């Protein structure tokens, strides 16, 4: 079984709360849930919708076709009626039920009975519950969890009223609820907190803002300093100050804010202070599409910053990956004293998915900080070593030793120098870390066939949709597999080189205009893709779209 429910209306109509209640109810029933949110850059009006998909199988994408539409306004009916599956239902108030096949219900009448205009959506949720014959007490529990007392009372009334409006159509079998439900940004922030991040600062910018607000909500409880800075220039410089003083520090923004951090990114390179930076991508250039998604910043973050210095870039593939990879990013930043950039995007930032609970015992905190006992004589912050990594002292922690961090080219002590030999030695020392990183990086995940004829290459958040498309094609006996890159700079090439040798065709799938991963592959390996499936309209790929385009554009040729 596999159902999708769409709730649509204008901004300000409480769509998100309703979606949260419904996804919690379905999770409580023991089902896998995937919720995709599509919203405009406005606080009131416009058209927003949320799609809640649930199934007894693993799901990692949304679907184009839906079973039920809960329309909070007439526009929703007009925009989404064609997406209804055969036998699907549109639920709405009878005043806006002008189309055929729409189920008109007395929402307005119930509202006047409860005397609370805000419970409109919950009546609809009651109808949906009844449609699937879900016990009302599961609905009540979810409502009580998400609303405060008074609101909760009225919403339970509304839920019950809705529940009594129709006859049930489907008997949903109840199963054990063993999962958590979380979006990419909260999973990312939770990974950082588990890793001991004690400092997060940022300037609000969609779609990174929910990282900032999640951190802020845990600030007192977890003892984490969270600062809403005056601008993103301050953000990275401040995080670098906090890290210099010895705490794990992170900042995040979207591409535009990341652009403002670029000078400080270059600074992080020469000053050799560990830091983790999140770029939650949205379509550019410039302001672009504020509340839409894209993978357009890959090349940008790999090359951003004047001068040459090592960095690592990792792309997050799912909420689960977001948790573990973010925690790992801090260890890598500390070990190599480099900036680690985490790439996510609006789609992954916002969608919620049921996943196995995180295993916190898997998180290891490795700081690589010297206590000073191994330092002979005067401390050299930039001591030349075989590995290129100099011992790191924290200022104030070792009596008699001072730590000098410098943005100029500097000698081993951190003092300004223009000496050509020292410059050559220091630049070489720093860049040695990129070779060490090549042993640190993880190969891309392989999904599908182990030795596929059709080899897909993709990265980051397209993972879920690609996975669904690949499984479907394997069921149809295609020899197909996909390499999904997480660690992406330096680019891990071992697994790709192996599979590319035997693959008949390589297909690049990305959410950008120019195929940035493909260009990276051409640069780093003797291979390139034979075909590209690209999408840059600001909307995420569904599994169905990738399946359809692979069939039409690649497999039929």
């Amino acid at each position, binding site marked *: 079984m596999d159902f999708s429910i769409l709730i649509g209306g204008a901004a300000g109509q409480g769509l998100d709360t309703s979606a949260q209640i419904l996804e919690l109810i379905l999770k409580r029933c023991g089902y896998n849930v995937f919720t995709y949110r599509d919203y405009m850059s406005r606080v009131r009006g416009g058209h927003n919708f949320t799609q809640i998909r649930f199934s007894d199988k693993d799901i990692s994408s949304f679907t184009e076709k839906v079973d039920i539409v809960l329309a909070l306004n007439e526009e929703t009916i007009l925009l989404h009626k064609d997406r209804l599956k055969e036998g699907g239902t549109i639920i709405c108030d009878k005043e806006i039920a002008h189309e055929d096949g729409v189920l008109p219900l007395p929402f307005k009448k119930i509202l006047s009975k409860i005397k609370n205009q805000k419970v409109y959506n919950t009546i609809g949720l009651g109808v949906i519950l009844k449609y699937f014959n879900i016990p009302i007490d599961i609905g009540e529990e979810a409502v009580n969890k998400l609303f405060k007392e008074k609101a909760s009372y009225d919403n339970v009334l509304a839920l019950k009223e809705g529940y009594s409006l129709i006859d049930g159509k489907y008997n949903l079998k109840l199963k054990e609820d063993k999962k958590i439900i979380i979006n990419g940004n909260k999973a990312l922030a939770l990974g950082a907190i588990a890793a001991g991040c004690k400092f997060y600062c940022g300037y609000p910018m969609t779609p990174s803002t929910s990282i900032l607000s999640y951190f802020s909500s845990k600030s007192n409880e977890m003892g984490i300093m969270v600062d809403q800075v005056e601008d993103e220039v301050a953000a990275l410089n401040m995080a670098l100050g906090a890290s210099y003083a*010895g705490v794990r520090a992170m900042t995040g923004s979207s591409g535009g804010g990341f652009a403002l951090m670029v000078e400080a990114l270059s600074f992080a390179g020469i000053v050799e202070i560990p830091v983790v930076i999140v770029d939650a991508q949205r379509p550019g250039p410039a302001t672009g599409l504020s509340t839409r998604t894209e993978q357009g910043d890959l090349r940008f973050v790999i090359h951003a910053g004047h001068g040459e210095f090592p960095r690592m870039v990792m792309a997050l593939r799912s909420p689960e990956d977001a948790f573990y990879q973010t925690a790992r990013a801090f260890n890598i930043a500390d070990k190599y004293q480099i900036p680690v950039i985490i790439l996510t995007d609006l789609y992954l930032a916002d969608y919620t998915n049921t996943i196995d609970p995180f295993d916190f015992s898997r998180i290891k905190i490795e700081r690589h900080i010297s206590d000073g006992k191994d330092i002979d004589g005067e401390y050299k912050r930039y001591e030349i070593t075989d590995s290129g990594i100099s011992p790191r002292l924290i200022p104030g922690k070792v009596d008699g030793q001072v730590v000098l961090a410098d943005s100029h080219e500097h000698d081993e002590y951190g003092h300004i120098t223009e000496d050509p030999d020292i410059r050559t030695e220091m630049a070489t020392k720093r860049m040695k870390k990129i070779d060490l990183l090549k042993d640190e990086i993880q190969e891309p995940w392989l999904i599908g066939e182990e030795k596929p004829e059709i080899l897909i290459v993709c990265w980051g958040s397209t993972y879920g949709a690609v996975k669904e498309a690949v499984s479907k094609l394997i069921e149809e006996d295609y020899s197909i597999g996909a390499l999904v890159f997480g660690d992406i700079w330096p680019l891990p090439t071992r697994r790709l080189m192996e599979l590319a040798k035997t693959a008949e065709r390589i297909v690049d799938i990305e959410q950008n205009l120019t195929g940035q991963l493909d260009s990276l592959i051409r640069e780093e390996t003797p291979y390139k893709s034979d075909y590209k499936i690209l999408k840059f309209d600001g909307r995420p790929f569904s599994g169905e779209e990738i399946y359809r385009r692979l069939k039409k554009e690649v497999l039929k040729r």
Partner: protein
Amino acid sequence: MNCEYKLYEPSWCPGCGNYMIRTALKMALEELKIEPHEVVLVSGIGQAAKMPHYIKVNGFNGLHGRAIPPAIGIKLANKDLKVIVESGDGDSYGEGGNHFIHAIRRNIDIAHFVHDNQIYGLTKGQGSPTTAMGQKTTLQFDGVKVEPIKPLALALTMGAGFVARGFSGDIPHLVYLMKEAIKYKGYALVDILQPCVVWNKVNTFAWYKNRVYHLPDDYDYTNKEEAMKKALEFDERIPIGILYREEKETYEDRFDFIKNGPPLVDRQLNPMDAERLMEEFK
């Protein structure tokens, strides 16, 4: 305990006011009996910003205009450190103007010493945010055509709790100001007038020397209106001293977990402590 601050050979021009400011800084820190490893000197870029290279102390020599943000990060990460920002007028009021304003809003416990020579030294003589209107420079050939920033007045209107002006040619007085600023719990601004012997032929040592005067003994530095008048007095006479002082809660003390706990850098880290946060997603 060793509170002696070692000095390194600077690359400043002979006669530069920076030498006197460094002498005052060394004396202030030594008299306060703070050890070099307990202090961080944070700077941006400019001649003044080279200070962390010329006195042995923890140093963070960052980007142009960006001395304040890392200073804030350092103080929040380790409240036990004495954090001093030492930079020029271009760095503090020009490139870093936005950070200056917002540092005052926060009132974080850092001392900010601005070497104000009313000119750009490192880049050879262009107008700075404090260069007087009409003054000819190596870039503004017909004279500067924008109004100068009035840093002390700006700081006062933003609500700064410690606003002072010093002069590099009056070392004992400057040592006093620096000590008071370092001891002050909150954001403390000391704008330090200094000649640039090469690039500023107007605001010379003699120009300052003839104008500066100590605020009288009976001056009431808790009177904000009076302080505003003194902050704007920059003509034939220039007052030096603590113009305004008010005790205020610091930014870091507004966070209970910082105020009532060990410095963040000393907290024990255990991933299992965060496991309970998963409850809300169940």
